[in-house]
């Protein structure tokens, strides 16, 4: 009886694995791949870029093998793979992950016609990667309770006691932490500590992520929250219309950081031509239009405009720091956040 049970379990398990084996569309290993296949490690979510990749395959006839994951974890994976990486292209959500790959010498230099089309704030100095879209930091606010003029010009204004009990943000979110790191680079550690202590004194509500923060603003739990600019559109797309708008900081304010998603070609790529075609596509008309209209981000190539009502990048004057170099400042940023009790 027991033996039969064990045999049955074994049988089912093996059967299930066999079925599982059939499930993936393309078997791994380079020999099984068609000549034109490009392997992409995508740190951007399938929800947001899957359709663009489909469109690329249809337009160019080049097949893509897309591996989705977390940007930083995929960067760590590529670093471990070293020269044996199966990846041709790495598409990342943030510049930090791209910088890490570039610093290890695992990216190949991009041709100048691709490099030159992208705004120089959103590409690597050595031409190792280019931005594909920009994502701005904003203060999202409840439009039933506030109007844009009520909000301070600088994010430092939120340390004023008048904001007590009215603000919220997600301190564990990597974009928020990158903003704190940027502030340390710009204003120094002491000024950043003072700022964070001022925020804490105003008893902020802390949320687990950007989406929850925006939903809390919509529900009126808090009036203002610090998030990336596109979340109000994402939440609206899922929940329907919400009474939330973005307030942008400008003139190089530390709150005005614009980070970029971007891509580079691995030096070990087996298909550099296909990889290059993909990056041309992402920075070309189709890609830029897609990021502008479908994910509500900033196009990073001249001649393309955001689809939603965003303050132009030129007015924002994102602070002058090397985005891919923020990695070194993340640790002091987290130390500070822990010190003031936000983590």
């Amino acid at each position: 009886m027991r033996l039969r049970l064990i045999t049955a379990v074994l049988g089912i398990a093996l059967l299930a694995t066999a079925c599982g084996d059939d499930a993936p569309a393309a078997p791994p290993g380079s020999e099984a791949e068609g000549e034109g296949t490009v392997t992409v490690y995508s740190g951007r979510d399938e929800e947001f870029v899957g359709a663009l990749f489909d469109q690329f395959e249809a337009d160019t006839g080049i097949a893509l093998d897309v591996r989705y994951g977390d940007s930083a974890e995929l960067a760590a994976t590529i670093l471990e793979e070293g020269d044996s990486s199966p990846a041709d292209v790495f598409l990342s959500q943030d510049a930090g992950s791209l910088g890490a790959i570039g610093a290890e010498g695992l990216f190949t230099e991009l041709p100048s016609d691709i490099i030159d089309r992208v705004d120089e704030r959103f590409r690597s100095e050595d031409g190792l990667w280019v931005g594909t879209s920009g994502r701005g930091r904003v203060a999202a606010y409840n439009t039933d309770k506030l109007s844009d003029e009520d909000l301070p010009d600088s994010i430092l204004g939120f340390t004023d006691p008048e904001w007590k009990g009215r603000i919220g943000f997600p301190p564990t979110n990597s974009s928020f932490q990158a903003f704190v790191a940027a502030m340390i680079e710009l204003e120094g550690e002491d000024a950043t500590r003072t700022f964070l202590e001022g925020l804490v004194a105003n008893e902020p509500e802390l949320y687990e992520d950007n989406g929850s923060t925006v939903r809390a603003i919509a529900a009126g739990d808090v009036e203002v929250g610090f998030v990336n600019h596109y979340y109000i559109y994402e939440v609206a797309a899922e929940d329907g219309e919400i009474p939330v708008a973005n307030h942008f900081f400008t003139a190089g304010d530390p709150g005005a950081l614009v980070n970029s998603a971007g891509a580079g070609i691995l030096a070990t790529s087996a298909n550099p031509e296909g990889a290059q075609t993909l990056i041309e596509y992402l920075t070309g008309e189709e890609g830029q239009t897609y990021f502008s209209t479908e994910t509500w981000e900033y196009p990073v190539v001249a001649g393309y405009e955001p689809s939603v009502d965003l303050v132009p990048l030129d007015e924002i004057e994102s602070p002058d720091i090397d985005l891919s170099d923020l990695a070194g400042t993340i640790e002091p940023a987290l130390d500070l956040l822990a010190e003031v009790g936000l983590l």
Partner: protein
Amino acid sequence: MAIAVRSAPRRAEAGRGGSAPGLLIMGAVIGAIVLLPVAYLVVRASEADSDSWNLILRMRTVWLALRSLGLAAAVTLAAIAIGVPAAWLTARTDLPGRRIWTLLLALPLVIPSYVGAFALLAALGPRGLLRGPIARVTGWETLPDIGGFPGAFIALTLFTYPYVYLLVGAAIRGLDPGLEDAARGLGMNRWRGFFRLTLPLLRPSIATGGLLVALYTLHDFGAVSMMRFQAFTQAIYLQYKGAFDRTPAAILSLLLIAVAALILIAERRARGRARYSSVRSSARPPQQIPLGRWRTPALIFCSVVVLFAFVMPMAVIVWWFVRGLASGDEARLTWVAAGGSVGVAAAGAVMATFAALPLALIAARRRGWVGALADRVSWFGYALPGLVVALSFVFFAANFTPALYQTLPLVVLAYVVLFLPQSVEPMRTALLQVGPRLEEVGRSLGRSRGQVFRSVVAPLISRGALAGAALVFLTAMKELPATLLLRPTGFETLATRVWTGATAGLYSKAAGPALLLVVICAVPLYFLARKIEVAQVPEMEMHPE
């Protein structure tokens, strides 16, 4: 009449039974595979220069290690405080609805801790769904913030106590009721009998369950980061994901291993050297203990645990799922992912069982350092965060066995390394209860070692093996970091679908796969609970080995 004797084993009797050279070689190979991640960490750590060391030898590292240890201790004690009474109530008393409680109390095990933590925040956090109703009923306008230590403590306790509950439940059902009669014959009342006799006999299962909980807490990242509790794993993740510096990450991971090793040594000491084993089996059912006036408190206890650990997270998932129904999601993808999950988790469970057998045999039958090593080696993969184990497999497979890289066998292998102790421990405990004497009898009757194993040992440990396989299956079903990094491109499991939805902030898309994950896991859990329920009760004769 059972005779109870408890004594320390004699060293001179260094058992040779069951430790054929073939077995030792198998054990060594499996041990080497389990230690691969540690080897990877040593390789990376050896690249350290003084900068990396300075980064690590800071007060903050010590502080984080102490915080994690403190959390692990608190969660373990709480998990035992919930798990042992729950096991006893469902196994031995006339608790109303015992059968259904047996299953309900085990169910929180299938809720991934990142989903559970999210659900807790969604219910009780600043935007909590339950805040309004609580305020209306109690009049409390502001609830205390559940972030930080309380949140991490509650989330991890609620979703790990089933380890203690299941293992102790199996042990209680395996106890010989004759022992309690004997205790009462000696004039002890029920409570004294429980504390003097039953509890010591349950000590090994409590210790193993507690160890699973403690090391889970130590390596967890999902729940602690969501609850904003500064833990040691955070320092490791920061190096990998924030600073992109693998050397300090490796040194910190080795420190985590060292902390785990201390806990492992302490547990082995606490377990003591005495062993208990039974020779005969009888079908005499255990006596059911009437709860009397304790019935209501017992029911309240079970209800509160199930409410917070299962009903509340499920309610949050269902709430999002219903919202998602309106927008009509692709259900097909979820079914394909379910097939992937079941296949790879089942393969992991089967492989872990085969890998566990030699280790369990050696650990149960060999004395000295070989036995001790076999007993402890399986824990080294379990003690590490999933991301670290996954990256070590990326390193070895991509560079040395590219044909294996990004294939399902590699995912299965990673599951074995990550979850092996869950399979080894129930089997080892079962082996200890069998005792070597039966094998000796079999051998003396002229049977070969293999014949004895097939006809005597295998049937007796099958229950432990099945329990272990079920535990591995359940944890593999919800595994995320290793699956994400090692899977073949395009291969989906329910856990990766949950992740895809949740990272995009589309909770309604994450809810469907999360719901299906729980439903699918409930099936083996039901059989596990039933299996324990209807199992024969072996009459235990304890004797010196």
